[in-house]
């Protein structure tokens, strides 16, 4: 299973005078669910693109299973580490949902027979089988996001990086995406979520890496990091709702039953509105 080692990573864009990432070191191993958090411009997406080889370190190194990304093609890394862009429309070009999924499978040399079988399975897992023949651009925002993830997960990468999975999503769509990502984590695969949405991150990830101005200012258990007022303020974040609720009520372990509490709160909220 995959292992990502980042050692003293510095990254600077070709025309920039300053580094976008500075002195970053961490290790991500199989089965981990990691949230990369931070304010706008903190370097989250730049870091993600360094992890899957789209960008190569200016100094330091990123190693996938011990091999430096500088010596690997993006395609070879992508076979192990999938990357889902924040805008799913940046990847759609086929007329049909199934063809969109087939694209990656063809690139990675799956036979047509194996691809057909995989497409059937993955569309079913992601609840998209009824849209199989539909144009991807005609799907809803949540469905597009699910299709984007499905078309990457089709070739079963060992790790998945998802950039801003909840942008423009309503509550129900977020729940669907959360269900999908949780199922990937439960398979023992590594999931790295880049997001501003701390509630969403808290509902999926055990670990958080917090960035501020290109530097890691926190790396550890998500719950511990996001309980730290100073750190949360420095990264321009806020505490997840459940941590705030625990602090207010003095109750502990609410995150253990996130789904139940979320649905109770939704019910209360809807009753209050009506």
């Amino acid at each position, binding site marked *: 299973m995959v292992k990502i080692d980042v050692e003293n990573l510095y990254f600077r864009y*070709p*025309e920039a005078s300053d580094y976008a990432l500075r002195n970053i070191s961490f290790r991500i191993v199989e089965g981990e669910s990691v949230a990369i958090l931070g304010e706008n411009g903190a370097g989250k997406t730049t870091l993600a*693109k360094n992890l*899957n080889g*789209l960008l190569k370190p200016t100094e330091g190194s990123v190693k996938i299973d011990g091999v430096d990304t500088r010596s690997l*093609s*993006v*395609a070879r890394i*992508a*076979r192990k580490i*999938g*990357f889902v*862009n924040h*805008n799913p*429309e*940046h*990847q*759609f*070009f086929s007329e049909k949902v199934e063809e969109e999924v087939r*694209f*990656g499978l063809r*690139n*990675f040399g799956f036979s047509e027979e194996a691809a057909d079988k995989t497409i059937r399975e993955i569309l079913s897992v992601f609840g998209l089988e009824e849209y199989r023949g539909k144009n991807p*651009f005609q799907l809803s925002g949540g469905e597009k996001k699910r299709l984007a993830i499905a*078309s*990457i997960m089709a*070739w079963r990468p060992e790790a998945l990086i998802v950039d801003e999975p909840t942008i423009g999503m309503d509550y129900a769509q977020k729940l669907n995406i959360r269900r999908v990502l949780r199922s990937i984590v439960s398979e023992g695969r590594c999931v790295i979520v880049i997001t501003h949405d701390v509630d969403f991150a808290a509902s999926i990830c055990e670990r958080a890496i917090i960035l501020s101005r290109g530097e890691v200012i926190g790396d550890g258990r998500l719950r511990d990091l996001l309980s730290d007022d100073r750190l949360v303020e420095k990264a321009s974040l806020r505490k997840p709702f459940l941590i705030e609720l625990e602090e207010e009520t003095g109750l502990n372990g609410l995150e253990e039953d996130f789904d139940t509490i979320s649905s109770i709160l939704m019910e209360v909220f809807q009753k209050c509105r009506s």
Partner: protein
Amino acid sequence: MSFLRAFKYRRKDTPVHRLDPRSKFLLSIVLMVVSIVFTDIRVLLALVAGQLILLTLAKSLREWLSSLRGLLFFFAVIFVTQLLFGGTLYTGIVLSLRLLALSSSMSWFFLSSTPEDIGRAMSVAGLPIELTFSFTMAIRFIPVIYDEFQSIYDTQRSRGLELEKGGFRNRIRNLMPVLIPLLVGTIRRTYEIADAMEVRAFGASPKRTTYRPLRLKSGDYLVFLASIILIILALVLKLVYGVE
């Protein structure tokens, strides 16, 4: 796409940046026409040298140089077609120089003039606002479209797409997963911008005013003079001395 960097305005305080866009535009057009009309290597070299001076004055030499990497592909195409269809290495060099002179003649102008300034200059020249506004928007959106292209390209590479793989036909076919999302996104954005403009009453008043009227200064008259001298020089070289 990196050659587009040579056409992206950079805010700087230089004598070239301070010039009126009309005088810069005239000189730029003259330089462009001269580089099209002549094939003599000495004229083309002189043109490129002159433009290098302009780029140095505009403190934009670095941007221009970094864009050359993008032009390398076109130089390669020129050389290959020349060698395939009966040309020589010399004609390849001349045509590449001409392309360099041609792109540089526009490059220093766009690097030193804001899209708004260019639009104002076109309006002053009497062109309809619909045309000047579209032109300004097109220029302003070049970097946006470039960023979007890069993002789409990265996304498709993350799905195993390798543009550099296979023969020429295969490479063209491989471009489709990049070009289609780019085209769809651009068309969508066009409609959104049109709506955003309409809700802010674009075109409601036929008489438009500007809060920064253009004024010619002494430096602009010098540029006009230089343009006229260049035209005369080009005519003399062509008609009197018969320079190719």
